[in-house]
């Protein structure tokens, strides 16, 4: 939000602002706009998934159709990547997809806060996913899980090179997983704000106002693109989660 007298700050929209001050264990756990939009996200998801399916209709209404579509979409993504036994992770993958998707879309509301544009949030999700992958892999396959880092049928001297590469690539997964979502959401919203701000500035710059429609049209186009990105990034996050879970279920190349 541009305050009067201040230059338009595209970063302002990412600022976490305290709504209710809360201090626990000597830490600042205040209820902020970030917390608010997290709760709104789960509220929207709960509305669709719990309220929408409350009547359990054989011929679904609108909300139930939406809930079923989401269910089947995530289920087919998960079973497509991991097979039938991946369904034990379905609640986790479904919650992740819905949360990220809802947060991305809610972030498109002007004046709202984009939960997924905070690196701490995306990093937490990435750590959760990789944590589940590692722990589930070790529980299911024991030390055999670490065969993931040892490609089969490779001679020993090359293994010495391959294993570190495999380990690095595995460790970079949470980094890329979190940075991809964070970067996309952050950059998209900055671009939106920049074009919007440019249009406003041009309007206030005398004869230059004639050029104001150009950034406005760009802002409209980028808004459409951002809706696509909102879905696409949620989907990419989900399918990569599925692919990583597949490693936990079926390690070995």
């Amino acid at each position, binding site marked *: 939000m541009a305050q009067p007298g201040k230059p338009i700050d595209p970063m302002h929209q990412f600022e976490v602002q305290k709504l209710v001050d809360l201090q626990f264990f000597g830490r600042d756990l205040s209820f902020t706009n970030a917390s608010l939009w997290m*709760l709104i996200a789960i509220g929207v998801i709960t509305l669709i998934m719990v309220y929408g399916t409350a009547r359990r209709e054989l011929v679904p209404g609108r909300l139930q159709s939406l809930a079923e579509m989401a*269910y089947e979409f995530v289920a087919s993504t998960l079973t497509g990547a991991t097979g039938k036994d991946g369904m034990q992770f379905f609640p986790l993958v479904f919650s992740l997809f819905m949360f990220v998707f809802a947060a991305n879309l809610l972030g498109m509301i002007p004046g709202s806060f984009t939960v997924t544009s905070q690196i701490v949030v995306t990093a937490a999700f990435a750590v959760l996913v990789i944590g589940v992958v590692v722990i589930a892999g070790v529980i299911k396959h024991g030390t055999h899980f670490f065969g993931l880092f040892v490609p089969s049928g490779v001679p020993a001297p090359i293994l010495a090179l391959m294993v570190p590469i495999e380990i690095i690539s595995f460790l970079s997964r949470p980094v890329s997983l979190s940075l991809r979502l964070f970067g996309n959401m952050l950059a998209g919203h900055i671009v939106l704000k920049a074009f919007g701000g440019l249009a406003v500035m041009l309007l206030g710059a005398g004869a230059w106002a004639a050029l104001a429609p150009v950034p406005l049209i760009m802002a409209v186009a980028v808004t459409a693109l951002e809706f696509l990105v909102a879905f696409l990034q949620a989907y990419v996050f989900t399918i990569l989660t599925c692919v990583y879970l597949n490693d936990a279920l079926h390690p070995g190349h």
Partner: protein
Amino acid sequence: MRLVTALMIAAVLTVPALAAGDGGGHRFPPFDARTFPGQIFWLILSFGALYLLMSRVALPRVGAVLEHRRETIDGNLRAAEAAQKQAEAAAQAHEQALAKARANAQAIAQEARAKSAREIDAKRQGVEQDLARKMIAAEQAIAETKAKAMEHVGDIAREAASAIIEQLGGKKPTAAALNKALGAAAGE
């Protein structure tokens, strides 16, 4: 599910401690570590609630609804298939009955035709025999009448000859002379 819950609890205990690095001044907001503990805390709270709601309530419910629908559709399809088979069987039975009835009708018609032909034949034969008998009787009657007529011819001739002679000669010829003369005439 327990695994995820345990991970969340571990995270809520450790991450704020890791992210406790403090600093001041104006920063790039997403990298402002002061907001991390609060965000992590609320994220774990809200995502944990979402996970519980989804795994305990929403997903089993949607799964059950989809399963129920699949079963209903399958059941209806099976019923429809059975009904179709039944209908086909009924149609076949109907066709068979129709064919049988047609064959029966043909047999009855043929029999009736044969029977009536026989009856007509018998009647005609009877009539023909009757006619033949009558014809024979009529021929006999004609022959009798003819014979009788022929018998009377002699008498008539004699009477006529006797009358002619009586008229011509004025004298009735004797029966013997008459018979002799007539016999000679018949003999010529």
